[in-house]
């Protein structure tokens, strides 16, 4: 099929990159935003703009709130569909958990309830959750959308396509293609060292686009590779569900054996039992961490088999000071407060996995590194976007001679996933500040604005990319850049108008979650204006005759082979 190895890799790079690049843009861009998901949450939920808090007292604050949590309506509805009929009157409580990081002022609390009448799944269950202000124990309104951690973050790995985990599979396929694109990209370009230092923005568009594609590709190559790979291994349980299918007997036998060996009950006993002071257990866990020379805060707290004689409490240390996530669990008997087990250090294999997972999820405290993550993610976006542009620039003249619309469609989709995606992200922020505070299902409306504006951007891109079919630049790029600038400035202004938190005040107070968001929005607006002005010059230029033939011929020598 291919005459050489290099050509086969070039084919793979071009066509898989084109088809799945659109998905990769979403994963990389919203992944980059997720690095600051908690900060975006603060911007979007003004009630939560205060300093991060440690885990509050379980006995005094958390316990009564846990007892009031009920299952989510949507989860009950979904469970009814799975069961194929009504659910039992009472859903037995299974466990409680609370999770926080060094960046969380508010605390997320979860409860799990058993659904006992699903004939196909004895482990059927539903969840309930609340978010509280740990200082007062006040429960925050339920339909405040956490735009960062609750919308952008899951978007980057699930596309919010929950049906049959379809979104996870599409993103997983895109991640595999990302890995293959990196391998094939290296194979295609033999002068890889030179590409670290080569960017010729003054050359014609095709040349500088390819320079930028290669530069961002090779400069951040280890970042792209590790993130695509660790993203896949994090969801390996979804992509390769061996423990739920072929190896289910082995997996279950192991889980039960492990629970028995550790003395942690796998199932409730059925005998009710009271609960000892969890605050005392937290003190003991902290004492043990300090004794192991790693004092720390509680990151994750879980009560298993609530109210049962087999109940136990697991307390995990927050991973603010290292790459691996929560760990060093100490397990206590819930009824007595006796230590059942102090989790031994992880095995070498588990350590590697924890490290890789932690590297991707970065819960550690290191702000400079955090910004480098954003930079890496955005370089991924630039790499993919310039891939699209190069595809179009390379073919549009030929397509225009042939009367083909192929380049135009690719360009319209590129506009949709580059500037259109930024527009959608800005639209949800603007909607967040504009919608009435007491609007029922406010969070759902914010999401509708997101998807609606993205669809409008797509429509605009298709409409305003007609000149591409004549070998010119699409005005859609420039127009959407102007809109990005306008929306970004509007978001900052609306934040000021609706909360009073203008930049001078947040900067003076040193409240970086909101100041950082506003500054980033202004930088985004500035870049969009610069891009729009440059695009206008380029559009005027592209109406003129094409570059001199000898320059084009010279460039062809260093370009990738034509496929």
């Amino acid at each position, binding site marked *: 099929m291919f005459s050489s190895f290099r050509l086969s890799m070039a084919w793979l790079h071009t066509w898989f990159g084109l088809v799945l690049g659109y998905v990769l843009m979403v994963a990389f861009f919203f992944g980059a935003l997720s690095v600051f998901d908690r900060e975006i949450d603060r911007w979007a939920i003004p009630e939560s703009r205060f300093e991060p808090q440690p885990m509050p007292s379980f006995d005094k604050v958390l316990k009564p709130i846990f007892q009031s949590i009920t299952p989510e309506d949507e989860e009950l509805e979904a469970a009814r569909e799975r069961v194929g009929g009504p659910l039992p009157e009472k859903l037995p409580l299974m466990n409680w958990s609370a999770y926080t990081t060094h960046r969380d002022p508010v605390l997320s609390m979860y409860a799990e309830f058993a659904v006992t009448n699903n004939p196909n799944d004895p482990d059927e269950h539903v969840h309930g959750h609340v978010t509280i202000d740990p200082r007062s124990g006040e429960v925050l309104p339920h339909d405040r959308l956490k735009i960062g951690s609750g919308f952008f973050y899951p978007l980057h790995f699930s596309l919010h396509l929950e049906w049959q985990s379809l979104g996870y599979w599409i993103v997983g396929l895109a991640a*595999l293609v990302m890995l293959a694109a990196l391998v094939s990209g290296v194979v295609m370009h033999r002068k890889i060292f030179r590409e670290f230092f080569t960017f010729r923005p003054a050359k014609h568009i095709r040349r500088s686009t390819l320079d930028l594609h290669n530069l961002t590709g090779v400069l951040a190559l280890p970042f792209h590779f590790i993130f695509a790979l660790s993203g896949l291994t994090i969801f390996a349980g979804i992509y390769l569900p061996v423990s739920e299918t072929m190896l289910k007997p082995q997996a279950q036998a192991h889980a039960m054996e492990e629970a028995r060996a550790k003395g942690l009950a796998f199932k409730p006993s059925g005998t009710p039992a009271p609960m000892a002071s969890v605050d005392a257990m937290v003190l003991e866990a902290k004492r043990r961490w300090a004794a192991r020379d790693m004092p720390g805060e509680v990151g994750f707290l879980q009560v298993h088999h609530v109210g049962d004689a087999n109940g136990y409490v697991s307390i995990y240390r927050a991973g603010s000071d290292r790459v691996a996530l929560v760990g060093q669990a100490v397990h206590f008997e819930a009824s007595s407060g006796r230590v059942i087990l102090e989790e031994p250090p992880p095995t070498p294999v588990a350590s590697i996995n924890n490290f890789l997972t932690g590297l991707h999820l970065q819960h550690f405290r290191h702000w400079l590194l955090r910004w480098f993550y954003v930079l890496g993610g955005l370089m991924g976006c630039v790499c993919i976007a310039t891939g699209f542009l190069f595809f179009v620039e390379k073919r549009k003249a030929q397509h225009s001679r042939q009367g083909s619309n192929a380049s135009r469609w690719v360009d319209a989709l590129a506009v949709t996933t580059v500037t259109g995606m930024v527009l959608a992200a800005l639209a949800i922020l603007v909607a967040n500040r504009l919608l009435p505070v007491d609007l029922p299902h406010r969070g759902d409306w914010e999401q509708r604005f997101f998807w609606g504006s993205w669809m409008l951007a797509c429509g605009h891109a298709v409409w305003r990319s007609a000149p591409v079919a004549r070998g010119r630049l699409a005005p859609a790029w420039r127009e959407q850049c102007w809109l990005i600038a306008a929306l970004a400035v509007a978001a900052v202004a609306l934040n000021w108008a609706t909360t009073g938190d203008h930049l001078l005040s947040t900067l003076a107070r040193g409240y970086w979650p909101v100041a950082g968001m506003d500054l980033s929005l202004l930088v985004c607006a500035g870049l969009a204006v610069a891009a729009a002005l440059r695009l206008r010059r380029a559009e005027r230029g592209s109406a003129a005759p094409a570059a001199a033939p000898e320059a084009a011929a010279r460039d062809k020598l260093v370009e990738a082979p034509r496929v």
Partner: protein
Amino acid sequence: MNAARIASRVAASLLGGYAFVWGFVTLGIALGLAVGMDYDDARTLCNLLAFLVFLSCFCWAFAHASLARVWGVLAGGGLLMTGAAWWLLGTTAL
């Protein structure tokens, strides 16, 4: 390069690659259990390697000249390894 051959190669790279990786992971865990490895460790180790194996299969599916051989190695190898895992798990007591 006709459309059917391209479709077949793409299918081989993804479906064949998946079958091969499934076989690799199940056989890997079965072998790990057979030599006394902890289940979680065996599964985690295989998961860490699985997508590198998939990446190699995927690229090889386009690099290799013979399409029949690509299908044979990926789908056939996957079936064979899955079968071997099945047999091995059956002979090892839980």
